[in-house]
């Protein structure tokens, strides 16, 4: 309980601190929103120029970037500071975390408030509302629950991927650059039904870098394309669970990596 209270208190104080720099605060929100401009352009082109993509109609396709962006926005808000771990290592901040009686991962997340997440989430929420409004699906309680689970699963899967990069950074600080590449890759391919890509690329984005589980598979299951994804239906449907399991595995790797941390001079 004390841990939750401390986390809430630090988050509140960090948020208040950001608010006091008004221009910086507003600029960061704008940056968060503008960062998603490619997705917005994709959505606009999709809806105005095409009737569909890869056998999906435009409204169904729209559910993919909406789910991915919402998952990404939540990741940035809740677990996104892991992305900055390379900098924290270089600055020696991790050393100060290690001498406090609090899990290092939690301290990383409480380092600052990610104002840009407000921009990310605002755009993502707008896109999701638009996607649901345009959708022909019957939004039953089951579908809504699955969508919510998919968003959280996507958030956890993205967090798992960046946690793995962070683990590498603990050993090789330059591994941080892989985080930027990963973010670029998620942003570039995360909005498409992966069946429009060559089979090998689709396979790579499913089993190599499991991007397909973030939004494509959940959207396929929701829109009735779950049997045409190239993987068994149950696997596509289990995407939220896979996100959770991937995150738990990444945290175990984090724990192991932290025990083998050698410091910036190592």
């Amino acid at each position, binding site marked *: 309980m004390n841990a939750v209270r401390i986390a809430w208190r630090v988050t509140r104080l*960090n948020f208040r601190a950001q608010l006091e720099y008004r221009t910086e605060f507003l600029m960061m929100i704008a940056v968060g929103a503008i960062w998603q401009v490619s997705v917005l352009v994709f959505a606009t082109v999709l809806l105005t120029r095409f009737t569909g993509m890869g056998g999906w109609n435009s409204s169904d396709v729209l559910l993919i970037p909406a789910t991915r962006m919402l998952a990404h926005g939540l990741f940035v808000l809740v677990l996104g500071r892991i992305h900055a771990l390379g900098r924290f290592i270089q600055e*020696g901040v991790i050393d100060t975390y290690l*001498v406090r009686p*609090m899990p290092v991962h939690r301290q990383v997340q409480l380092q*600052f408030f990610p104002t840009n997440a407000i921009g990310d989430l605002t755009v993502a929420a707008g896109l999701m509302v638009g996607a649901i409004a345009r959708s022909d699906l019957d939004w039953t309680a089951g579908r809504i629950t699955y969508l919510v689970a998919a968003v959280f699963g996507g958030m956890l899967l993205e967090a798992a991927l960046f946690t793995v990069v962070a683990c590498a950074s603990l050993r090789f600080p330059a591994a941080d650059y892989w985080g930027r590449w990963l973010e670029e890759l998620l942003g570039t391919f995360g909005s498409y039904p992966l069946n429009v890509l060559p089979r090998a690329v689709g396979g790579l984005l499913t089993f190599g870098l499991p991007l397909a589980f973030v939004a494509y598979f959940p959207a396929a299951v929701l829109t009735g394309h779950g049997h045409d994804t190239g993987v068994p239906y149950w696997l596509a449907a289990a995407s939220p669970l896979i996100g959770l399991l991937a995150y738990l595995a990444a945290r175990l790797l984090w724990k192991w990596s932290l025990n083998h941390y*050698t410091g910036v*001079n190592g």
Partner: protein
Amino acid sequence: MTGSIEVRGLSRTFHTTVRRPGFAGALRSLVNPERVAKHAVSDVTFDVAQGELLALLGPNGAGKSTTIKMLTGILTPTSGTARVAGVVPYEERERNARNIGAVFGQRTQLWWDLPVRESFAILRDIYEVPKAEHAARLKEFDELLELSSFWDTRVRHLSLGQRVRCDLAAALLHDPPVVFLDEPTIGMDVVVKEQVREFLRHQVAERGRTVLLTTHDMTEVERLAERVVLINHGRLVLDGALDEIRRRFGSTWQLRATLADPHTEVAGLPGVVVVRREGRQVVFGPEGPGAEALSVHQALKLVIERYELAGIAIDEADLEDVMRAAYAQAEAAL
């Protein structure tokens, strides 16, 4: 709980890649990297008693910070053991963290964007310090470190001296029996340095805290430590009381001579060595330690007879010279 530190055969080896010189060398390193083991700390053994302030000294890269990192639980040793207040730091990191305070002079443990007082309050919650106790301790620290004039300022706006004073307070707010200070006064002005030293003296003498301090400031060592441990190339080369080290390595006197002719060749004299020379200024010291050494009057006579001088002064050797002599002897022994 006792606040002692026990270190037995502590070692830490890092494996690094040898950087070959030149572009061709860099390409060769890429294709065929040569890995070498770097022994940052080798078989170091020492104790620090409860309520003792020990200065851990050594040149840059000697292994001081790596030793502190192992004792604070940041790094796991390659071999050997350490116990800090009864806890093995690298096995029970969070439990060890409750028993220790740490200040790394170069970096802060405070929240950069928050006013200092907010950081203190967060640390109070993390360490679960009762509010009344926290307030009383903060009042005590304010009296010693004059924090209240800037503790409502954000950390990012503090000067270095203000920031380190706040870091010191933050490290001790949970009343730890053991404190690690890694170059805490680096870059500070003399007034603030003295204030920090007074604070540390108070923490050791009045509160009975065990302090392990690393510094390159010999004035600090003279004012604070009664015992020092010298470490060089990762090995412990000397462990003893400051007075004993002075007797063993320190000239009991020094002659600071100014040569009349700056081109004069200077060499040692029987029983007298040249400690250092800077232009016309030459510092002479006794050749042998302790009782074997020449008296300052005998040396003065020899120097005046041998060289034409524009001036001469008699000094006691400072601690820096003593340490230099100790390092030199240690180097020769390796």
